[in-house]
């Protein structure tokens, strides 16, 4: 019964070349010695990797991006875990509406979200730029935290928690000692997925820059619009390696990549 579809296999291969080819090309050009991006490159050199450190805005914005993503993640967990718990544990009036509100940041166009935050969070509320970045990134991470942890919780058998409570554990104690350990891998995956979402974000961060303040993607965007040397290609390779590592960890934690195919 196994029938070979050579046509389909060739078509799929071509599509994957289209998807991955550009990423291969970017990697190869990053090792070129010339000052202009060229494929194929004329030789081999690592100088553009050294240049990442020479342009001090790159390491600086990299650190900013990491700090904003980590702090935002923490904040999103503090706000999101109790909400995800309530939304998946109880049925109550207005649950669907509340669920929709918590997931709504993915529905609003990012560029719109960024602009309205510039207008109100930075200008009207007068928050400093770093705080604005933190708040903005927390908002976009919340839906991912709620969705991934929510799906972990919906697989959790709450009668175990009830058992702990009936045996004398406090509500909080039962949550931290019984529920939390059981959804640990879901939480880790949520954190990593939200981290990538925040770390790669352009739409919010592009509105929240100041003298010497920016995130890495925005710094890359600005650099590309002014210079065309392989430094950005070198950074891209570093970022792709980090992405690959995180994806590997997510795959291990979730026991597969099924999260991405279920929406």
């Amino acid at each position, binding site marked *: 019964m196994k029938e070979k*579809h050579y046509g*389909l296999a060739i078509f799929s291969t071509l*599509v*994957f070349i*289209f*998807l991955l080819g*550009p*990423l291969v*090309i*970017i990697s190869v050009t990053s090792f070129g010695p010339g000052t*202009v*991006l060229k*494929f194929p490159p004329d030789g081999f050199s690592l100088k553009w990797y050294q240049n990442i450190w020479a342009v001090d805005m790159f390491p600086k914005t990299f650190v900013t991006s990491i700090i904003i993503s980590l702090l935002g993640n923490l904040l999103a967990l503090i*706000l*999101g875990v109790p*909400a995800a*718990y*309530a939304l998946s*544990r*109880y049925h*109550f009036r207005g649950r669907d509406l*509340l669920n929709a*509100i*918590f997931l*709504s*940041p993915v*529905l*609003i166009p990012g*560029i*719109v979200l960024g*602009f*309205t*935050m*510039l*207008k*109100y*969070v930075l200008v009207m509320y007068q928050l400093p730029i770093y705080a604005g970045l933190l708040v903005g990134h927390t*908002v976009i991470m*919340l839906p991912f935290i709620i969705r991934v942890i929510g799906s972990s919780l919906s697989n959790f058998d709450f009668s175990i928690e009830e058992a702990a409570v009936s045996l004398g554990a406090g*509500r909080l104690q039962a949550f931290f000692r019984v529920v939390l350990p059981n959804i640990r891998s879901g939480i880790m995956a949520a954190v990593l997925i939200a981290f990538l979402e925040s*770390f*790669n974000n352009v*739409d919010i961060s*592009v*509105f929240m820059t100041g003298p010497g303040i920016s995130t890495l993607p925005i710094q*890359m*965007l600005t650099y590309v*619009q002014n210079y*065309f040397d392989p430094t*950005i*290609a070198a950074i*891209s390779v570093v*970022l*792709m390696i980090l*992405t690959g590592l995180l*994806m590997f960890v997510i795959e291990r934690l979730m026991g597969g*990549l099924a999260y*991405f*195919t279920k*929406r």
Partner: protein
Amino acid sequence: MKINKMYWLLLPGLLFLTVFMLIPIILTIGSTFVQEGKPTLEGYLYFFKDAYFNRILLTTLRVSVFTTVICIALGYPVAYYISRLGTRKKGILLALSIFPLLTSPVVRSFSWMIILGRKGLVNNALVATGIVDKPIEILYTPTAMIIGLVHLFLPLIIITLVGVMENVDSELIRAAESLGASRFTALRKVLFPLTIPGLIIGSVLVFVGSLTAYTTPALLGGKERVISTFLYQNAMTLNDWYLASVIATIMIVITLVVVGLMNKVATKLNPKG
């Protein structure tokens, strides 16, 4: 736990989103209907009358429609191919689809700047094979935006459709074939109708995504504007926050209408309700 105690769990997140997202959005929308203390629709009349804005809106729609159609044409067969593979191969191809999805859009758009530029791979190949005498302009045109956006959203539609197709019982297709249908007829009459709800969801994700994407048009579009880069330009370069708010409102309305329609149609088509 008492039900009103449970609301306390939701309160911090809700307050946070209200203060930092809902209020800014509602006030931004509200601000477009008031000018110098008087209610007005002037911003919208101005927007829809002006030829330049109309051109931007049209470019945006055209780019998004093309992107969506190409994504489906390329993604549907690939998703079918992946969904019929064994676990191991399927896992590898899914991972290869998800990797670009998690890679920074700046990196992915930038890679097309290398490929499509005047001295890029495509132009070199065209000149070397004698198809054209001198490099053609691809980068900084709507075509470049479409290529970049297809590259950005194709993984999304592939993995969405793989998820849908995995739920279709392959026995159904075999049954149709054993009753005399050709493979193609079996796919068209059995598989295709069952994947329509997923196809709609995937298309809307791509369409809305292309309509509102910023990074790719900003890098590959050059001076060619789409609605999102136009919003940015008004907000940050021209400092016209009133017009930027009008554009933001239009983008929100378009997104909500398209997503709302999708939900309606998808619920109607989904046999499980």
